[in-house]
């Protein structure tokens, strides 16, 4: 079953008097449980495609389906609901809420979903342990390293057990050791929780982890390959 289906997506931006093509008739299908990397140089359209899949940005034309939901037909409120319940986001700059501790950052999404306090506390504890942040629950983002902050962001993204995680340059601000640890974590979550990962990156180390590698340039998909031996497979 397909987790994401994009058909003929087009998106342009105006920059001054210049029209820039973000997506140029992009069509793609991603299976549930897949681990996909979107790669390409800056301006190739990978972040635009990721934003369109996550309902953060609307395409000028084309269709996007996430699970059973036609994302391109949703209004602001239902889009927010879909992001809240079905999608987890990991950003390049971590984007944690600075006034909340690691545990509160993770619980925040669950509270917005209306989950009871006991459940929130229990799950946030478990998930922070799973991403290797046991004992750091009460630290605020400023008291954590970049890698630790990104782990909190990952915990926040997966705590509500989304079907899909969209990650935009998740390793861009991390050193190679931390980046490797993060990618191992992604693979583990993909394998153990069957979460679909779509990662936009131009980091070749990250691409090595992908089961499927999609290359983009100038808003178009220029290659789409399945990789037989991704770097890390967790047993």
């Amino acid at each position: 079953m397909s987790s994401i289906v994009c058909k003929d997506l087009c998106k342009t931006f105006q920059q001054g008097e210049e029209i820039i093509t973000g997506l140029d008739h992009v069509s793609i299908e991603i299976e549930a449980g897949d681990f996909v990397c979107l790669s390409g140089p800056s301006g190739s359209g990978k972040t635009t495609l990721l934003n369109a899949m996550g309902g953060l940005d609307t395409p000028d034309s084309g269709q996007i389906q996430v699970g059973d939901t036609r994302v391109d037909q949703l209004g602001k409120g239902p889009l927010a609901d879909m992001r809240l319940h079905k999608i987890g986001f990991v950003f390049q700059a971590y984007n944690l809420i600075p006034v909340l501790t690691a545990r509160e950052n993770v619980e925040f999404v669950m509270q917005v979903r209306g989950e009871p306090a006991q459940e929130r506390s229990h799950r946030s504890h478990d998930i922070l342990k799973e991403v290797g942040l046991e004992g750091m629950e009460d630290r605020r983002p400023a008291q954590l390293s970049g890698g630790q902050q990104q782990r909190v962001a990952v915990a926040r993204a997966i705590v509500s057990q989304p079907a899909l995680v969209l990650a935009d340059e998740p390793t861009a601000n991390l050193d190679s050791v931390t980046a490797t640890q993060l990618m191992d974590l992604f693979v583990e979550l993909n394998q153990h929780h069957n979460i679909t990962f779509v990662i936009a990156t131009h980091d070749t180390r990250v691409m090595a982890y992908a089961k499927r590698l999609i290359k983009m340039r100038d808003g178009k998909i220029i290659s789409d390959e399945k990789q037989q031996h991704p770097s890390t497979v967790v047993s």
Partner: protein
Amino acid sequence: MTITLRMAWRNLWRHKRRTWLTVGAMIFSNLILVFSISLQLGSYQMMIDNSLKSYTGHMQIQREGYNEEPKMRSSIDAIISLAGRVRDQLGNESVAARGVAFAMTSSEERSYGLQIIGVEPEYEPKVSTLPGLITRGGYFTGLNTEEIIIGAVLARNLRVGIGDELTLLGSGHDGSFAAGIAIVTGIFESGIAEIDRSMAQLPIGYFQDLFGMEGRGHNIVINAADLSEVESAKQSVSSVLKDRDELVVLDWELLQPGLKQAIQADFTSAWFMYGVLIVLVAFSVLNTQLMSVLERTREFGVMMALGVKPARLGSLVITETAVMSGLGLAIGALLGIVMTWYLSIVGFSYPGMEDMAERFNLPDRMYPSLSILSIMLGPSVVFVFSLLASIYPAIRLFFLQPVTAMRAV
């Protein structure tokens, strides 16, 4: 504590100095409002009391219709004994009978038309400040003595002094000719030229003889212990009048409607000044919250990307304002209470007030009146306006696009 409240509290202290500046403005305005409104309400009470105690009294017994159309014949029979019964009923000596007439008053050189008030010398000083304002001579020596007290302006106009004779000519109760002579025993200075020029008092016994009243008078003036007891005293007095259907008890609002209107007008104009203060505070809150929202555009974009709806983000901004305003309200009101409570005990005066008070037979200090109303009214309005001021920054969040917002620096 919910996560929204926790976030609101912590967000406030991200910029301590800015938050304290805004809270400081609220504290200052709340303190000023608590004190000013308490002082205002206290001064109104003093104004009403002083105004009523100077002559009108808290209430009066009159014949029905007399207040609207005062006529010589609209009188009360056996007024002195009725006043005595009212005193007994209330257990209060501040009850005095009066008669009212008009007469041409002449000295050897000049004549003027005057309002003549017949008073009970023993009880009149307890319902009116006028006897205390006699600056020359003294008050009456008996109920039936042929004595008169007049105002300083009239004394000057008539060119008379203490011990001089005045001739009174007027109409009696039955329409007959009334004439008599009275010796000037006292000259008062009320500070109000109209009263000092056109009013005189006689002992009520002589007044009744002079105007053929046959034991009658026109009103019984009653002062309650204070304004708050007027209503209960009125009911008690009404029970004395059960067998006197022709008589009514009128309280000060009916006797002096202008007084209440003047207070309302003063209160309204004071609120204009308070309004300026409140609007300034509201703009300070608007500025703080608008800056706070603009600075956190990226953060709000991230939260929207996570699936948080603008209404929830708006409620966060309003909660932050409510917490900030609550802090300003609590500290401001507390300081206002302490300051006002202290001044309500030791009193408050301004330069020149003592001289004026002595001249008009008024208290020489003002005492703010602390009440739930005076404590809560101003700060509550500041609180509500602060919340209203945060609506605009909150509404701006509804127009944010997650992707654009997350690009904000």
